[in-house]
């Protein structure tokens, strides 16, 4: 086959630029531009109130509205949720008490399951033929059992066994009169009232469905007159049945559960029923059982008839009347039998009381709250009441009277309700609402004086956690430091901190949330010693992550503060050191992202050497996280370029050495990376940096390294967890590489274009996919590169680096070498085209032929006859088998004709004549 010579077209890049560029129009300030950054200014933010909703209005300074800000308009769904978070509260009760009970191990737990078993047998009794399980049932089993009962209630109902359903409900509510395992009572209450709710709904729905019979659908607020006789009779029947339940507690609960059904009987039904049920509770002797019964009644009452506030208040006052019972003999004897301390017994009242108090105080006028508080004050030993007042009343109400409350708490006796719980409740209020300005310090002093005396670390930390928020909010680092010091002092003995990681973590979060200035934060002396208490690695890393997240969020200016750097390096090191073989990819990514955020924020200003030594230190610290190393390489490259910028391109001896040090840093860091394309791209980047800084031999080293790495590129690579062919990536990289190679000057001791040659060899030897033409595509690109290299002046240059154009100055030997290479490449392309002359590959042949034609058109000198002939042949080849896209061909031809109108391109018109268009027939 004949070898076609290559003749590159001479290009006048400047003129070409001028013809193809768009006209530039200056942009006035304030004009709309799609690429202009969007600035959103928050113009107004309402103060967040406890019950109210948060709303914020945003407007943008430009004409562009940030879509995210519009979402925040109107009510915040979370605060709406908070306003009516009733069911959540109940769930919280459950968790609170289940949780505390679960945590207990050993004999106590055994005692529970022992008791539980007897109660389960009790449950079994009414189920005919039930076998007595003598398993050592745990609390979870008990819970599951009750859940089963709930299900069997539904089943019995569904299969029309109403009597059985009622029996189940009665048996369940009977369990509520049993306080033999007193700590389990609140959980049991929640579980069983759940069943009662189910039952109440079933009865209600059934009667409602009977009404639907004649009036297609009853309106939501139907009146009793619309209820037909059958429904009415059924409803009455239920009430009669329930009225004849022998025992007081089941009778009360079951009747309360179907309170809603009174609607079917009369308008006044509920308002007559509620006071009667309230009175009925007076008959319950055990104060704990009775307070939970009241809580249930309040709950049902609020649900069915929220306007009937009277009986809520009645419940409260009745409760106050029976309050003295708690300290009576019967209860004390009962506690003595069970071996329960008063201080762990009293908190069992809190969920129910909080509930009642909350129902009453919801939207209650100020004077009612004051009255309630006064009445609580009058009773002796009122810590329990105080606690519920603090948990249920509005935070603002409590906060303004903080000093009063502290006084009252102090007066409470030591034996009763635990004081730390009282201070905790007060602290919770103060976290939500601010006390009067003048009282703040006194409140903290008074409260902390008591808190610091708490002996039990668990009690102590529960309090301290809550008060940390108040301290951080209103005081300076001095007070925070004192508080942290105190916490350390309490939690260190016997490694008490090990049991309180969640609380300690929450304290840390509060502290960092309030100190946005990290310089101040780290100058809090006890902050780092506090961090040292997190000795379990997972928690420690979690805390470190929090700190870093907030740092990235709040630190806007780069910093070189040695305190911050030291502390954060320590934090980052902790995160980094937690990485091991088992760490998940996601976790690694998160950690790396956080560390990168930190690395980017460190700046020593003009002290570049210090900066570099920081990067060196960072590299040694974070060597296990690849993304961090990548970031470091980028940072160092950037540092080199900054240096260049400062020196305006003229390096002094000192800066040249420094820049070489930077480049060396990159050179030795890159090989430790795993990702092959990461390495390739970084070699290229670092090579470019070296070139820009006139480190020619270093640049050569980078490029050589890149070239020698190419054979190692695997066939497929892992991208986001999926295996993908690597060729497209390689193609992309090589194109990028070629455009850099254009300006790399030849090494005086190596041959002409030695890098290109080496690269060509590597490409030649690389095993390409049989079904792809990427190799040929690359050859075409090489052809473009070579044509660009044969120009008198290159398209672009690196400042202060002489590229081959000025080195050789259009030397004919160089051009001859260049052309030889071109011929070689063309031979390869043409061979490949010929090899494609098989049926299944004809389409590829056509496409590739056309693309080669285009390349010649763009870069070749078509005045050369042989090249001209070749292009005509390629044109025919592209069309020969009918795979050519007619539109493309037509367009191409039009383009050629248009080009021929240009002054020095007249020879193209002649070519155009020789290019026939294939017509489809």
């Amino acid at each position, binding site marked *: 086959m004949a070898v076609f010579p290559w003749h590159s077209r001479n290009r006048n890049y400047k003129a070409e630029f001028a013809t193809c560029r768009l006209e530039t129009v200056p942009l006035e300030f304030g004009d709309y531009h799609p690429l202009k950054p969007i600035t959103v200014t928050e113009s107004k933010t309402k103060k967040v109130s406890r019950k109210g909703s948060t709303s914020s209005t945003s407007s943008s300074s430009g004409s562009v509205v940030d879509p995210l800000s519009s979402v925040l308009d109107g009510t915040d769904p979370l605060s709406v949720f908070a306003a009516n978070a009733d069911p959540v509260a109940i769930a919280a009760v459950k968790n609170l008490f289940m949780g505390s009970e679960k945590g207990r191990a050993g004999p106590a737990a055994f005692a529970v399951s022992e008791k539980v078993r007897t109660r389960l047998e009790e449950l079994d009794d009414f189920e005919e033929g039930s076998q007595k399980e003598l398993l050592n049932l745990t609390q979870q089993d008990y819970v599951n059992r009750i859940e089963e009962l709930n299900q069997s209630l539904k089943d019995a109902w569904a299969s029309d066994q109403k009597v059985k359903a009622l029996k189940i409900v009665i048996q369940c509510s009977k369990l509520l*009169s049993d306080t033999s395992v007193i700590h389990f009572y609140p959980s049991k209450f929640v579980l069983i009232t759940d069943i009662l709710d189910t039952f109440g709904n079933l009865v209600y729905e059934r009667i409602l469905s009977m009404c639907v019979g004649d009036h297609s659908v009853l309106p939501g607020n139907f009146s009793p007159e619309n209820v037909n006789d059958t429904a009415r009779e059924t409803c009455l029947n239920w*009430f*009669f049945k329930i*009225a*004849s339940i*022998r*025992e*007081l*507690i089941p*009778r009360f609960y079951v009747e309360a559960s179907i309170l809603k059904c009174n609607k079917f009987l009369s308008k006044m039904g509920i308002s007559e029923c509620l006071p*009667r049920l309230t*009175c*009925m509770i*007076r*008959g*319950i*002797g*055990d104060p704990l*059982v009775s307070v939970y019964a009241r809580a249930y009644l309040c709950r049902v009452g609020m649900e069915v008839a929220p306007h009937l506030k009277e009986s809520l208040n009645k419940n409260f006052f*009745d409760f106050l*009347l*029976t309050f*003295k*019972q708690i300290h*009576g*003999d*019967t209860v004390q004897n009962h506690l003595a039998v069970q071996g329960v301390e008063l201080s762990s017994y009293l908190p069992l009242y809190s969920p129910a009381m909080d509930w009642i108090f909350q129902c009453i105080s919801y939207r209650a006028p100020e004077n009612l709250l004051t009255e309630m508080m006064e009445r609580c004050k009058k009773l002796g030993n009122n810590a329990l009441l105080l606690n519920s007042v603090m948990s249920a009343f509005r935070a603002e109400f409590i906060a303004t009277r903080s000093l009063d409350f502290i006084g009252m708490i102090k007066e409470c006796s030591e034996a009763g309700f635990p004081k730390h719980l009282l201070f905790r409740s007060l602290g919770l209020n103060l976290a939500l609402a601010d006390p009067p300005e003048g009282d703040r310090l006194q409140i903290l002093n008074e409260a902390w004086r008591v808190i610091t005396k708490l002996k039990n670390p668990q009690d102590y930390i529960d309090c301290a956690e809550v008060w940390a928020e108040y301290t951080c909010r209103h005081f300076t680092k001095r007070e925070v430091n004192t508080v942290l010091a105190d916490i350390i002092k309490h939690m260190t003995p016997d490694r008490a901190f090990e049991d309180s990681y969640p609380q300690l973590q929450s304290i840390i979060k509060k502290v960092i949330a309030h100190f946005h200035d990290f310089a101040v934060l780290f100058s809090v002396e006890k902050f780092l010693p506090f961090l040292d208490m997190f000795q379990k690695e997972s928690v420690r890393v979690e805390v470190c992550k929090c700190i870093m997240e907030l740092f990235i969020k709040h630190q806007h200016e780069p910093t070189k503060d040695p305190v911050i750097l030291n502390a954060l390096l320590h934090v980052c090191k902790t995160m980094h050191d937690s990485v091991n073989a088992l760490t998940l990819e996601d976790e690694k990514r998160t950690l790396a992202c956080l560390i990168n955020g930190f690395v980017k924020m460190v700046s020593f200003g003009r002290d570049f050497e210090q900066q570099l030594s920081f990067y060196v230190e960072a590299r040694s610290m974070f060597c296990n996280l690849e993304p961090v190393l990548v970031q470091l390489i980028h940072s160092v490259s950037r540092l080199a370029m900054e240096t260049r910028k400062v020196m305006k391109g003229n390096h002094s001896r000192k800066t040249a050495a420094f820049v070489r040090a930077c480049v060396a840093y990159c050179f030795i860091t890159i090989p430790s990376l795993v990702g092959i394309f990461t390495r390739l791209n970084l070699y290229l980047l670092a090579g470019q940096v070296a070139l820009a800084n006139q480190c020619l031999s270093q640049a050569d080293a980078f490029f050589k390294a890149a070239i020698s790495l190419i054979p190692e590129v695997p066939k497929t690579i892992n991208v986001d967890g999926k295996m993908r062919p690597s060729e497209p990536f390689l193609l992309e990289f090589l194109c990028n590489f070629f455009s850099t190679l254009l300006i790399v000057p030849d090494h005086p001791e190596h041959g002409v274009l030695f890098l290109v040659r080496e690269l060509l060899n590597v490409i030649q030897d690389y095993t390409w996919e049989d079904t792809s033409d990427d190799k040929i595509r690359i050859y075409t690109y090489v052809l473009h590169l070579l044509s660009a290299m044969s120009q008198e002046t290159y398209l672009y240059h690196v400042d202060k680096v002489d590229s081959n154009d000025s080195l050789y100055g259009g030397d004919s030997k160089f051009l001859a070498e260049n052309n030889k290479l071109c011929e070689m490449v063309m031979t390869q392309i043409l061979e490949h085209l010929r090899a494609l002359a098989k049926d299944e590959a004809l389409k590829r042949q056509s496409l590739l032929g056309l693309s080669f034609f285009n390349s010649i058109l763009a870069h070749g000198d078509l005045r050369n006859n042989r090249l001209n002939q070749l292009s005509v042949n390629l044109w025919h080849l592209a069309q020969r088998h009918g795979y050519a896209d007619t539109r493309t061909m037509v367009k191409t031809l039009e383009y050629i004709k248009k080009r021929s109108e240009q002054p020095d391109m007249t020879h193209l018109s002649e070519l155009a004549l020789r290019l026939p268009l294939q017509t489809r027939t």
Partner: protein
Amino acid sequence: MEMLSGVVVVSGKDPVQHQGLFLTVEGAVNLQLSAKSVGVFEAFYNSVKPIQIINSTIEMVKPGKFPGGRTEVPFEFPLLVKGNKVLFETYHGVFVNIQYTLRCDMKRSLLAKDLTKTSEFIVHSAPQKGKLTPSPVDFTITPETLQNVKERALLPKFLVRGHLTSTNCAVTQPLTGELVVESSEAAVRSIELQLVRVETCGCAEGYARDATEIQNIQIADGDVCRGLSVPIYMVFPRLFTCPTLETTNFKVEFEVNVVVLLQGDHLITENFPLKLCRV
């Protein structure tokens, strides 16, 4: 004159030939003697016969043929009492039962069996005229007020006071009142209301009086708060209660017992006769 009205439904696939459709109303007071009374009044035992209050039959449909499918025959039946008897209210007790039944018979030819269906119907006596006069009762229970105590000195000290809104009650209205445990040395275990019926069967030779419990309602469970009033509230169960009845042959009366159970198995009962009526 009371009317009993309703429909008789005849349904069958095929037409039914019959010899007439009859309705019979029967009402009777059945008296029974409790086992403990039998020994004493053996002579009397035999003499207890059901007292018929009503027994009458009407022919609804003359002999003929009901077509296939469903046929409804409406009726109105006048309740005519026998002689000078009174139409007592339905009552199901232990020793006294007052029951009314309606029987429907379809006579058929010799070859086929007669068809019979019976169902009970409830009689409520007519509301009494005039208002119920309330008769409130206050009570105080202390060890001293108790009768039937063996060793008064062993009793713990206590003081329970209370009152019933009225001992004249309407059966449809609950029994209400209040009770206060003012003081008690022993812990209270439970306070209950026991509704008791007192049935008396008798004649010239003598009578048998039996008290049995209808229901027991707990109004206080555990050691109730001292000095705090606990409501007394009891709904009278339907069917098992009726207005207080006094006839020459039998009596049905009601009483309520307030039962206080103290720690150490001390059972204190205070009895209140009730007069029930319908208003």
